[in-house]
């Protein structure tokens, strides 16, 4: 493809208040959306703020709203995201406070992992050194399989941006934190289930999910938080019926 072809890009400038600024970026073969933003920042306007690190879909820092759809920009080719008229509109993620331009404040989002008790809590027996032994987790066991299905989250915030319930209720823990909690509910080495299920049972917890499936639709890693949240709802029912949550 010739480099003389130009891509018309509209980029959000500002924070909550702001406007779109237009740039023309040379079109290149296999160009990613992140390449476009980098070209603008390096060659056209050094004041443009955005966030990226790994460029290979591991770190989860470059997510933006591309033509109305939240995406990881480093692994999104321009050719898949561009409109028929050759335009690209870049906005910061929805449901986050915008710091500047395309960079958003992620603190609340990550805090929700903590609030959903999305961290490993060893069994009581592990606190006694003499009791320690290897816990066998067979890879084919249903719990391990369920955890595997949700474990690859990179914390990019795409699901959080796409979620309608997050937009309606800012306290809602959101698909990423609840998915994380579900992987730990399925961790047989974990001893913090009561506190975890308690933390995610409130009005901001798993029962607030409306099963719109936006998170599942847009997750760049192919994770399905809707089903993880459904798993949590089932765990809650089991708990209410006095059965083990797993």
């Amino acid at each position: 493809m010739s480099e003389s072809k130009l891509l018309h890009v509209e980029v959000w400038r500002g924070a909550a208040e702001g406007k779109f600024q237009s740039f023309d970026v040379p079109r290149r073969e296999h160009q990613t959306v992140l390449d476009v933003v980098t070209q603008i920042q390096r060659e056209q306007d050094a004041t443009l703020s955005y966030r990226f690190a790994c460029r290979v879909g591991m770190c989860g820092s470059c997510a933006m709203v591309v033509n109305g759809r939240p995406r990881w920009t480093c692994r999104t080719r321009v050719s898949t995201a561009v409109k028929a008229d050759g335009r690209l509109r870049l906005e910061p993620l929805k449901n986050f406070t915008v710091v500047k331009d395309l960079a958003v404040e992620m603190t609340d989002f990550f805090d929700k992992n903590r609030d959903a008790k999305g961290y490993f809590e060893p069994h009581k027996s592990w606190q006694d050194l003499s009791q320690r032994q290897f816990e066998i987790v067979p890879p084919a066991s249903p719990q391990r399989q369920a955890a595997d299905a949700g474990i690859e989250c990179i914390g990019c915030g795409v699901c959080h941006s796409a979620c309608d319930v997050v937009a309606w209720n800012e306290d809602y823990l959101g698909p990423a934190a609840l998915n994380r909690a579900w992987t730990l509910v399925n961790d047989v080495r974990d001893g913090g289930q009561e506190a975890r299920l308690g933390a995610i049972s409130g009005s901001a917890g798993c029962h607030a999910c409306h099963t719109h499936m936006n998170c599942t639709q847009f997750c760049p890693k192919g994770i399905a938080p809707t089903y993880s949240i459904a798993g949590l709802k089932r765990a809650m029912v089991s708990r209410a019926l006095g059965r083990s949550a797993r």
Partner: protein
Amino acid sequence: MIEASHKQPGYIAALLHRLAGLALAIFLPIHFLALATALNGADALDAFLNVTQTPVLKFAEAVIVVALALHMTLGLRVLAVEFLPMREHTFLTVSICLAAAIAVGLLFMLNVG
């Protein structure tokens, strides 16, 4: 511009589910009021039933039947997603729900004549 997340089958299903629910919530009190006309004697009820024979109301009746069927199929879908250890192909299941509801409406119209 409609957001990309609002053009997905899951969102459209949720929207239709709620709209159908609203339609039913509005219909039910009217339905009970209509039945209550029987308290004023058979003539009062018959007078009301005659009004329902107009084509517009017959069509409205079919719409309510579709809304009821839609509310049920989409509700069953949500229950299946949340309580069965299965993963759905959202576009396919929502399409089936819609098709079933419309089929129920068509059957109703055939019977109403």
